C-alpha cells in the first residue's frame, strides 16, 4: 500500500521557490491501478519520485508498504528501488549496447542475485512479455514499442510491489501505446503489482481503475471507474437464429 499524508514538496527557496506538491493526501491499496493526470509542471513526476525515494517530502509522510520513505538512509532508499519499486520512463532509459536479456537482468546483477535465480526470473519476464525471440538483440535495434516492453520487463524482474510509469507511451505511436497500456493492465491484474501511472493523456489514464487530476500540485478531482463493466462473450455472427 502507498500512503501520502499531507505531503508538500517545495524546490528552491526565497523568491525562486517552486511548490511542486501542496498538501496532498491519498491511499493506494496493494494491487490497485491509479493514473495521475495533469498538465506539464503539475507535479506528476515529483509524486513518483517521492514514492521511489529519489526525492524527499518538504512536509508530510510518504509510506510504501508501511516504510516511511523520508526516514530511509540513502542505501535503504536504493534498496527500496532495487527490490520493491519498478520504474518505467517515457524515454525507456535502457543501456543501448547491451542485449535485451542483459538489460532485463541488470537490476538483479546490481542486487547480486544468485545466478540461477537470476536466469529463471529473466527467462520468466522474457516469455511473459513476448521478448524471448529478441533476447540477443541489442536494444538499439528494436522499435520504440519493443524497447518499452524491455523497460517494463526490467522493472518487473525484481518482482516489485509497485510499478511506477512516467508517461510510458509518450514516445510511442498509437498502436504501440495501446499494446503497452494493455500490457501494464495485464501485469497489474495477473501479478497483483500496484501501478501508478502518470500521464497528460486521458486515453492513457482511462486504463486505470482510479484517476487523480493534479493541477498546480493539488489533487483537484478523483474519478473512480465502473468496476462492473462487463462486455460479455463473443457471439456468433452467421448462425444466431435461436434454433440451436
Amino acid at each position, binding site marked *: 500500500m502507498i500512503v501520502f499524508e499531507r505531503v508538500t514538496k517545495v524546490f528552491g527557496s526565497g523568491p525562486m521557490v517552486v511548490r511542486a506538491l501542496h498538501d496532498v493526501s491519498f491511499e493506494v491499496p496493494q494491487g490497485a491501478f491509479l493514473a495521475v493526470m495533469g*498538465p506539464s509542471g503539475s507535479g506528476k513526476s515529483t509524486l513518483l519520485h517521492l514514492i521511489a525515494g529519489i526525492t524527499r517530502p518538504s512536509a508530510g509522510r510518504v509510506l510504501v508498504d508501511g516504510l516511511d520513505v523520508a526516514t530511509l538512509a540513502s542505501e535503504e532508499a536504493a534498496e527500496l528501488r532495487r527490490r520493491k519499486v519498478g520504474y518505467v520512463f517515457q524515454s525507456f532509459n535502457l543501456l543501448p549496447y547491451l542485449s535485451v536479456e542483459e538489460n532485463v537482468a541488470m537490476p538483479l546483477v546490481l542486487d547480486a542475485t544468485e545466478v540461477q535465480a537470476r536466469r529463471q526470473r529473466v527467462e520468466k519476464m522474457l516469455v511473459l512479455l513476448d521478448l524471448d525471440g529478441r533476447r540477443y538483440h541489442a536494444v538499439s535495434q528494436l522499435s520504440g514499442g519493443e524497447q518499452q516492453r524491455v523497460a517494463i520487463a526490467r522493472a518487473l524482474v525484481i518482482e516489485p510491489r509497485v510499478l511506477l510509469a512516467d508517461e510510458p507511451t509518450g514516445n510511442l505511436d*498509437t498502436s504501440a501505446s*495501446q499494446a503497452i*497500456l*494493455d500490457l501494464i*493492465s495485464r501485469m497489474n491484474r495477473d501479478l497483483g503489482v500496484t501501478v501508478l501511472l502518470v500521464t497528460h*493523456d*486521458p*486515453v492513457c*489514464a*482511462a*486504463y486505470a481503475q482510479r*484517476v487523480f*487530476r493534479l493541477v498546480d500540485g493539488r489533487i*483537484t*478531482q478523483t*474519478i473512480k*471507474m*465502473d468496476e462492473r*463493466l462487463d*462486455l*460479455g462473450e*463473443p*457471439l456468433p*455472427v*452467421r*448462425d*444466431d*437464429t*435461436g*434454433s440451436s
Partner: protein
Amino acid sequence: MDRTRSIRYGVLGLLSRADNGLHGWAIKRQCERVFGGFWQVNLGEIYRVLGRLKNTGLAEHVEVTGAPSMRKVFRITHRGREQLREFLGQDPQDAPRPLREELAVKLLFAEASDIEGLLLLVERQRETYIRHLHAVVTHRRARRPEWADEFVTGLLIDGAEMHVRAEIAWLDRVAARVRERFRFS
C-alpha cells in the same frame, strides 16, 4: 445520419450477414458487441424496426423449427439487399458534431459569481468523458481477432477515443480561459 436511419440500416446490414436469419435479441447482442456503448438500442426499438422492414418488403419472417415460440426470426429479402447496397454507395449524411451547447449558453451568461459553479460543471463533464473512455478502452481490450466485426469495432473505438480526447482538450481550454478571464484560482 439520424438515429432511425442508422438503426434501420444497421439491422438490415446484420440480417444481410445471417443466411438463416436473426431474432431481435441476437441483433441486440451483436449491436452491443460491435458498437459497445456507442449505440445503445433497446429490444422494443429493434422489433419495431424489424416490423417496418417486413412491412416494406425488405425483410421477411422465417419459421425456424425448434426455435422458442416467443422469438421471431427475420431474414433479409432480395429487395432488402438491393436497398442496403444502394445505401452503402450513398454519401454519408452525418453533420459535424454540435458544440457543447448547454455549456456554451452557460458561459455566455455567466457572471464572476457563477464561475466556481461553471468550473465544477466542466469537471463533471470531464469526469463523464473519462468514465466513457474507460468503457471504450475496456471494450478495446475485450476484442478478439476472430470476431467477424473486429475490424469495424476497432475503427469505431479509434474514432471514439479521438472524439473524447478532443472534447477533454476543449474542456481543459475552457477551464483555463475562464480562470484567466475571471482571475479565478
